[in-house]
């Protein structure tokens, strides 16, 4: 919020009338929100005083609007287009996923990966961090259940960096470059998550002014874990308030500093149209077959409900499948994961649910194992291989 007097001072002088007004209406925002009735009353009082210098109400409105618009950048389409041409597409390091996202993660946008547990969300987050860190960008990684694993980051970078045509030795050398670039923290509740975002908005401006590198990627894995706790509090508005605050802070950060924000989210299913709220996720699924369950609701939906859904620019659904009979091509040759009897080959299907650039509904497949992580052909088209839902574990 900007104080009324301060805001108007920048755009010319402030007279006694404005100062009297400032005693009642403190901020520009409050003036904007004040009802016409109040403003007219003020104008009448000023007229009674019969001061010569008093501005007309109309002029005051204009000055307030001007003061407020100083905080807003107006860009034309050409400038935006030029900016887009020079903007960075951050690769995820997985070929097919990059193709699905139209080249990679777009800076300034919020990308969400959602899926059941497990579906490879954390693995994708690790891959993204590894790639961005290798490209020299600082990465902020926030985890809410302690699921950041530096060992896995090292392992994954080895697979992911193949993407950049590096030789074996170059890959090993680059690890010393990747690890210091990733900052990790554990977040314990939504409030602290919001504070960190607001802190970043404040501080990155300062860093930018002093020509210090600001992070290019901010990963949060996963905000929904904390948000569901706040949403379950009796007063629903509290959770919704925090949710709005968080998404506002995230999109401001992403937009102002051209940061790619990466989130993960729960997957929920609707039992019946009547109870289709996002809070369903919390339901114990002992009685799954709700009376209104229809075939269409089998497809998982992103958690956190309708209020959250528009806050995300790009949304990708992840789902795991187990490979029953392994094709050599799929396994990545003799070094493939399936060759060792105790490691199970798992393939992951990514579906683009929402995007402003790509066409939604497209799918990409990738394989996730110890020895490799990479994009693959749709295994349903490959002959020697049978794919099953991974959650059926016996």
């Amino acid at each position, binding site marked *: 919020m900007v104080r009324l007097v301060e805001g108007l001072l920048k755009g010319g002088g402030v007279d006694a009338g404005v100062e009297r007004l400032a005693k009642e209406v*403190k901020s520009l925002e409050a003036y904007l929100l004040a009802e016409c009735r109040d403003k007219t009353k003020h104008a009448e009082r000023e007229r009674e005083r019969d001061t010569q210098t008093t501005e007309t109400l109309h002029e005051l409105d204009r000055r307030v609007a001007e003061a407020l618009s100083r905080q807003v950048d107006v860009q034309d389409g050409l400038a935006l287009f030029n900016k887009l041409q020079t903007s960075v597409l951050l690769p995820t390091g997985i070929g097919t996923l990059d193709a699905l996202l139209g080249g990679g993660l777009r800076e300034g946008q919020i990308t969400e990966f959602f899926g059941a547990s497990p579906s490879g969300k954390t693995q994708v987050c690790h891959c993204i961090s590894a790639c961005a860190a290798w490209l020299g960008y600082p990465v902020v990684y926030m985890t809410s259940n302690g699921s950041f694993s530096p060992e896995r980051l090292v392992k994954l970078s080895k697979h992911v960096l193949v993407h950049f045509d590096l030789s074996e030795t170059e890959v090993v050398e680059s690890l010393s470059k990747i690890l210091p670039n990733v900052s990790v923290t554990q977040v314990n509740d939504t409030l602290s998550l*919001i504070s960190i975002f*607001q802190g970043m908005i404040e501080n990155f401006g300062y860093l930018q002014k002093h020509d210090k590198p600001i992070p290019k990627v901010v990963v949060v894995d996963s905000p929904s874990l904390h948000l569901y706790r706040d949403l379950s509090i009796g007063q629903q508005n509290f959770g919704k308030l925090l949710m709005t605050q968080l998404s506002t802070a995230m999109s401001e950060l992403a937009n102002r500093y051209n940061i790619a924000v990466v989130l993960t989210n729960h997957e929920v299913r609707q039992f019946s149209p009547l109870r289709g709220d996002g809070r369903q996720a919390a339901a114990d699924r002992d009685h799954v077959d709700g009376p209104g369950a229809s075939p269409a609701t089998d497809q998982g939906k992103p958690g956190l409900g309708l209020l959250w859904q528009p806050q995300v620019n790009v949304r990708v659904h992840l789902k795991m499948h187990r490979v029953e009979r392994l094709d050599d091509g799929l396994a990545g040759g003799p070094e493939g994961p399936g060759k060792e009897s105790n490691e199970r080959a798992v393939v992951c299907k990514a579906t683009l649910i929402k995007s402003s650039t790509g066409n939604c509904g497209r799918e990409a497949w990738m394989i996730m194992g110890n020895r490799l992580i990479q994009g693959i052909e749709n295994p349903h088209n490959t002959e020697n291989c049978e794919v099953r839902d991974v959650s059926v574990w016996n």
Partner: protein
Amino acid sequence: MYSNDSRSNAATSTTTCLDAHLVACPPKLRRALVDAGFNNVHDVCHLSAMDLARELGTTPEEAQQVIDLAKTKAVGAYLGNSVTFRTALELFENPCERIPLGIPRLDAALGGGISAGQVTEICGPPGAGKTQISMLLSVTAIAGGGSTRDSAAGRASCSDRGVLYIDTEGSFVPERVEEIARGVLGSEAATRQLLSQIQYVRVHSQVEQLALVSDLASHLERNRNIKLVVLDSVAFHMRSGATSTSGDKLDFSKRQHSLANMFHLLTKLAVENKCCVWVTNHITVRKAEGGDGAKVVPALGDLWAHVPAERFFVWNTDDFRGLLLHKSPSSPQVLVDLNRETGLFA
């Protein structure tokens, strides 16, 4: 580099700025505060609720809410010192403590065993061996090395680490623990020493469980040697709470909240006390997608499913005892047959 800068900068800005404290404050009250001319924390803190209510034109209750929010050190502290970003390099060079499971191949895949600082879940049908593995883990956590080969050399060693075993089903068998401990350590004295380091709590109801979990942080504060908290099982009382038809039946949202709160506390406990939280869970059946057949999933629903960073499935058929590493941030899925692994499970 950047984290240091941002921290020092943030610390100076929070001493005056009220905004950061009022994130959870309703918009109406925030506007009232700005309108009344409050812009730093100090202004609000020294007022009484009545005075502030008069200034803001709100009810004293609302004013008290604002004062409480302004007084919480928490938010300011988050921006200042308590948020410590560590680089992945630091984390990689100082790996967190790990408790070996005693299954060499699985331990190798996990990078040494169950990691401290996170919640790990094991689920499976009744009688599959969840409690057995929990008891084994309690022993290996204290015995140190844990691998049977070391103990075969006859070296009876016992670290000073402790274990807190929370039993909700009454399935803890001290004789079995003693047997396992004797198998690992070999000597009578060391076995007795080990048993004395396992603290045991029996929980009889949902309320007791919630109360205990809320109090765990202070308990661990007093007993800093506890490196492993076993909760066997997390689901038993929580599931029965759903169907209770008694007078003070918890309604759905209240139950959800108490569940979510417990999950939050368990995660926080693991992270802040750098200990390993090991929980066992029941399984339940969910209709498979596409409508053909059913699939087996952990109980307590999707909200819980995302809480554990690592999850194991254990199951038993006539000639096969499978232990599947179902979910882990540090390893792909691994399946081992317990019958063919170490002798500890015989």
